[in-house]
């Protein structure tokens, strides 16, 4: 989104409508996209404002495994901790992991994808590495690495981004390939532009729209991956994430007896991923002039 907004500030949308302006206009008039964007904003606000909404869940109380009530909206867990507080603080960690892992994976993936498309000689090797890593079962590999490096927030972020960049590189590469042979790229080369300049000023803007979508989608996949790792006990034991709530529920056995210990963190994960997917779909629709018309 930030790219679109930045463009809007520099070129006012008026008589001659810019592509970014048209995209934003179409996006604003798509209720699905707006609702999804609103949902995402709410989740971000909950994550940022966690200390204002609930006390950090720690220690234990005697209100063990209470079902949802006006006192504990989402009920309490086996140690009497408020599940709503856990979900709220979990939003913060899960979204941090998603955002950081996505940022790292996208940076690296965009770099590799662009280099692959721009330098045909490097492409065969890079393409092969990407293809190979895409066809392997990633979760068992992530578990192995996380187990080796020891569970901490930093490890989780690094591990997830390390195994997410190939997907980004694949998408960016195919978009960049359709641009590298266009006349304006040749013109930039004829002008004597250095590779770095061409890559930054000519190729990067061409793949930017794809990057916007992949940032959102990669982040949502990272949240799922984090939840999976935490659910298997590979999460950071000192911070709350949605996966850890499920893990504790499974470990203590309340998973099979008290539905509220699993329903609310599950709903949070689903909400975030659906919102991210819908934003991506709405953005793609808005960007495509053909689907914009209907």
């Amino acid at each position, binding site marked *: 989104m930030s790219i679109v907004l930045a463009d809007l500030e520099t070129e006012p949308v008026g008589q001659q409508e810019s592509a970014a302006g048209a995209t934003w206009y179409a996006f604003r008039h798509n209720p699905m996209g707006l609702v999804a964007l609103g949902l995402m904003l709410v989740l971000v606000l909950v994550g940022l404002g966690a200390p204002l909404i609930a006390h950090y869940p720690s220690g234990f109380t005697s209100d063990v495994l209470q079902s949802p009530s006006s006192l504990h909206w989402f009920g309490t867990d086996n140690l009497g901790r408020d599940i709503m507080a856990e979900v709220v603080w979990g939003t913060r960690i899960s979204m941090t992991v998603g955002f950081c892992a996505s940022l790292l994976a996208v940076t690296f993936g965009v770099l590799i994808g662009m280099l692959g498309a721009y330098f045909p000689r490097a492409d065969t090797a890079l393409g092969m590495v990407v293809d190979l890593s895409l066809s*392997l*079962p990633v979760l*068992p*590999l992530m*578990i192995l690495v996380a187990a080796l490096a020891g569970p901490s927030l930093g490890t989780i972020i690094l591990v997830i981004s390390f195994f997410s960049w190939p997907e980004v590189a694949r998408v960016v590469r195919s978009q960049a390939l359709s641009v590298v042979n266009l006349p304006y790229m040749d013109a930039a080369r004829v002008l004597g532009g250095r590779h770095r300049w061409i890559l930054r000023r000519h190729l990067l803007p061409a793949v930017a729209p794809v990057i916007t979508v992949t940032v959102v989608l990669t982040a949502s996949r990272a949240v799922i991956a984090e939840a*999976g790792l935490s*659910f298997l*006990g590979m999460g950071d034991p000192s911070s709350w994430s949605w996966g850890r709530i499920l893990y504790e529920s499974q470990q203590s056995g309340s998973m099979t007896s008290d539905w509220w210990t699993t329903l609310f963190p599950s709903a949070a*994960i689903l909400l975030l991923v659906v919102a991210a997917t*819908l934003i991506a779909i709405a953005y793609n629709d808005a960007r495509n002039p053909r689907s914009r018309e209907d």
Partner: protein
Amino acid sequence: MPPLAWYALRRVAHGLVTLWFAITITFLLLRLLPGDPATAIASTNMDATMRQELLTKYGLTESLPIQYGKYLVQLVQGNLGTSFSQSEPVSTVLMARLPWTLLLTGSALVVTVAIGIPLGVVAATHAKGALDRIVQVVGVVGQSLFVPSVGIFLLYILGLKLKWFPIGGAHDENVYGIAWYLNVGWHLVLPCASLALVSLGSYVLILRSTLIESLGEDFCVLARAKGTPERIVVWKHGLRNALLPTTTLLGLQLGFMVGGSVLTETIFAYPGVGRAIYESVIRLDFPVLQGAFVLLAATVVAANMITDLAYGLLDPRVRTA
């Protein structure tokens, strides 16, 4: 050489390269990461001679290239090392569990395709209609599901509340003959359903868009112009051609499904490779973790190879590509 044999050869070579890549990556990760298995089994506050003994026993004192060479030779012989916690060969531990994982992921794959194809066809033939919208919503939501959440939900409702299905394990004790097979199938329903539900979403969405594209192509227009009934245009002309790219993507999804099986098996205490991974994580049993990944990677590679070879047989375009 006939094109089919050439194609098969290339495909097998590609599979072997993928497998080698998986093996090398695990080796490098295990040896180069800060918390290497040497420190895990032989911590530094151990008696120095005992530590040295342990390191020698697991061959961790030699130089990296030699370790790598030995590791490759062992793998070719089917030796995956010795489990830290069970003092048994990793291959023995895992091979007993592999059939269950194959059964689980295989059946989930079949269910995904069996439900996904009709749903995709309905959506594509009613493009932009109400049915299409419903299928799209189901697809997007399905794609966004978290495997353990689905598993827990099914287990709670169908297993605990309604008591229709067992909540864990792969079969009961003391059941033999045909009853055993039925018992296995009965235990399979919930884990298989959770895995299939999660992979169904993206499969339907992909099939839908490929089929819409394929139905707009010239050969479908021609078939319609000839007066071929729409049902045959869709199922025979359109779908058959849309299935190829979909199958390739299904291969990619297989890796994801195998990951999902780790989570599903954990929830349902299903005795597959995934459950072994979960148990080894708690005990920090690195040889088993490593062996499980290599084994699962080999499974995915083999499955992809078989699919591609089958497609080469069925579709002559693939052979020449």
